C-alpha cells in the first residue's frame, strides 16, 4: 500500500507537468503536447513548424520545469530543516531564510549588479538561519516555540531591510524588485532553468545522499552524538545545502512561502517519517505542488497572479490546522 502511494507521488510531477503544458490561454491538445515533446527529445514525430511548438517549448516547458525544480528545492529544504531542528512546524520561509535570501537579491539588483544574484542570496540566507538559531538557543536547548518566534523576528528584520532597499533604489529597478518579490514564474526561461539546476546539484543531491542521517539527527544532539554522528558538522552541512537550494529558488522567483512546510507534512502523513523515503517523496511532492499552484495562478484569471499568493492562501489555513491538531504536543519541547 505504501509502495503504491510512493509510486503515485513519484509519478505526480510528470502527470502535473503534462497537464500544465496543455492548459493555458492558447489551447493545445494533450496529445499534441506529447507529440511536440517527443519531437523535441527523440525526434520521432515531425510536427512541422506550428505555433503550438513555440508555445510549448519556449514558453510553457521552461516555466513548468522551473516551477518543478523550485518546488523541489523549497520542499527539500523544508524537510531537512524540520529534521535537524526536530520541529515539524518550520520551513525556509518561517525560519527567515527566504527573507534573508530576498534581501541578498534585492541589494544585488539595486546596488551590486556586478555580483551574481545567487551569491548574496546565499550569504544572507545563511545569516538569517544562523541568527534564528542563535536567538532561539538558550542553555543549549532550542524549543519549538522559540525557534518559530525567532524565525518571525529574523524574517521581519530582513523584510524591513528589503523595504529600505526599495526606498533607496532607482525607481526603474524598484519595479523589477517589487514584482520579483511577490513570487512568480512569469519570467521563466531556459536560462532560469539552467541556473535552477545549480540548486539541484549543490543543494538537493547532497541532501538526498545524506537523508538517512536526518533520522538520527532528529533524535536530538546528545543522542545523535552517542550514536556516532558528528552533529555540529552535519548540521552545518544540512543547513548549507538547504540554504543554497532556497537561495537559488528565491533568486529565480522571489519569495514563495509554505511549500516547505506543507509538502513534507502531507508526505509524512501518507508514508511515515522515515527520511529515507520522506526526502525523495517530498522532492517529488514539492515539484508537483508548485507546478499545480503555478498552473492555477496563470489560468484562473486572464492575467498572471503571483504564485506566492496561491501558496500563502493554502499554507496559512494548513498551518492553523497543524497547530490545532498537534495541540500541546506540537508546542512542547
Amino acid at each position, binding site marked *: 500500500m505504501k509502495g503504491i502511494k510512493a509510486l503515485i507521488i513519484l509519478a505526480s510531477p510528470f502527470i502535473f507537468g503534462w497537464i500544465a503544458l496543455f492548459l493555458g490561454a492558447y489551447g493545445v491538445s494533450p496529445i499534441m503536447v506529447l507529440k511536440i515533446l517527443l519531437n523535441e527529445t527523440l525526434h520521432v514525430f515531425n510536427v512541422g513548424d506550428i505555433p503550438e511548438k513555440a508555445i510549448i517549448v519556449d514558453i510553457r516547458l521552461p516555466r513548468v520545469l522551473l516551477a518543478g525544480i523550485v518546488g523541489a528545492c523549497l520542499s527539500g529544504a523544508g524537510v531537512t530543516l524540520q529534521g535537524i531542528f526536530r520541529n515539524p512546524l518550520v520551513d525556509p520561509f518561517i525560519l527567515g531564510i527566504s527573507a534573508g535570501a530576498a534581501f541578498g537579491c534585492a541589494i544585488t539588483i539595486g546596488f551590486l549588479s556586478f555580483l551574481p544574484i545567487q551569491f548574496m542570496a546565499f550569504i544572507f540566507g545563511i545569516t538569517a538561519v544562523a541568527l534564528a538559531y542563535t536567538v532561539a538557543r538558550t542553555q543549549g536547548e532550542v524549543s519549538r516555540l522559540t525557534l518559530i518566534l525567532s524565525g518571525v523576528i529574523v524574517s521581519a528584520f530582513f523584510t524591513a531591510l528589503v523595504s529600505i532597499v526599495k526606498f533607496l533604489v532607482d525607481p526603474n529597478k524598484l519595479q523589477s524588485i517589487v514584482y520579483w518579490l511577490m513570487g512568480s514564474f512569469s519570467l521563466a526561461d531556459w536560462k532560469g532553468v539552467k541556473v535552477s539546476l545549480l540548486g539541484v546539484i549543490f543543494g538537493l543531491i547532497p541532501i538526498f545522499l545524506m537523508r538517512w542521517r536526518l533520522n538520527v539527527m532528529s*533524535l536530538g544532539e546528545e*543522542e545523535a552524538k552517542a550514536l*556516532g*554522528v558528528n552533529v555540529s558538522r552535519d548540521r552545518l552541512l544540512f543547513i548549507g545545502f538547504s540554504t543554497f537550494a532556497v537561495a537559488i529558488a528565491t533568486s529565480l522567483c522571489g519569495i514563495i512561502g509554505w511549500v516547505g512546510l506543507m509538502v513534507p507534512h502531507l508526505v509524512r502523513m501518507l508514508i511515515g*517519517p522515515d527520511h529515507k523515503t520522506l526526502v525523495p517523496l517530498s522532492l517529488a511532492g514539492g515539484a508537483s505542488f508548485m507546478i499545480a499552484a503555478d498552473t492555477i495562478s496563470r489560468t484562473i484569471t486572464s492575467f498572471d497572479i503571483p504564485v506566492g499568493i496561491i501558496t500563502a492562501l493554502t499554507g496559512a489555513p494548513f498551518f492553523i490546522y497543524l497547530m490545532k491538531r498537534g495541540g500541546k504536543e506540537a508546542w512542547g519541547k
Partner: protein
Amino acid sequence: MLEVKELYFRHKGEKRDILKGISFSAEKGFITTILGPNGSGKTTLFKCISGIWENYKGEVKVNGISIDKLPYKKRARLFSVVPQDHEPAFPYSVFDVVLMGRASYVGIFSSPGKKDYEKAETALELVGIRHLKDLPYTKISGGERQLVLIARAIAQEAPVMLLDEPTSHLDFKNQINVLKKIKEIASLKGLTVIMTLHDPNLASLFSDKIVVINSGNKIAEGSPKEVLTEKLIKRVYGIDVVKVDINGQNIICPLI
C-alpha cells in the same frame, strides 16, 4: 572493560566540583551499577563517561583506549548509550529506531545497507521484541520503549553499554523484565554494562558490582553483599534500614 580514573567535573563558571575525583572500573560480562540518591552526582558521572559533557578532568578508558578526544564515530563503536525513556519528534517505527544504532557504520553520504538491516533484525530478535517491529515507537509502552533502546544499543555492537536509569519510568513488572533482559544480554554477549539506579534493592538484585556515589565522592565499590550494609544506607540515604537475606539475596527493608 571500562576504567574511570580520578574524574573531576564542574560546570563552567561555577566554583564547586560536582565530581570530586571518582575512580572505579567495570568488567566484561558483568553489570556495574552506579548507585546514589538524587543530587549525588551519578547523572553527572554518567554524562561524563558517555561523552555528553566533555570538559571533565581525569580519564575514562574503554579496553585501554582513552575516550577523551576520540571522534564520535570511534567512540560510538566503543560504547553504546541507552538514554532515559523519551519521545522523539517524529513517530518512527520501532525498526527504524533500532536501525539508527548503525549510524557509526554508515558513511555520511549513504544509507544503511543489507548488513545493517540484518544486524537490526538480530538485535530485535535477541531482545525479544520482533513483534513490535512495524509499530510506531511513540505508540508502545514505556517498558517496550526501553527494550527498543536496548536493541538499538545492541545493533551498535559496542563492547560497553551504558544505561541511564533504565527503570525510572517503569512499573514494577517492567522494571524487573527490563533488568532481567539486561542481565541476560550482558552475559550472553560478554558486554561490560554500566547503569545508574536509585533503588538499592534493584541494584542489589541485578548487579555484580555496585559503586556508591554521594555528594560527588565514591563511598564504596564492591559486590552488593559487601557494599550494601545498614550503616552505608544510613550514611548515604539518611534512613534506618534492616538488611534481610532471602534465598541468598540481600533485601534492604526500611524501618518505618
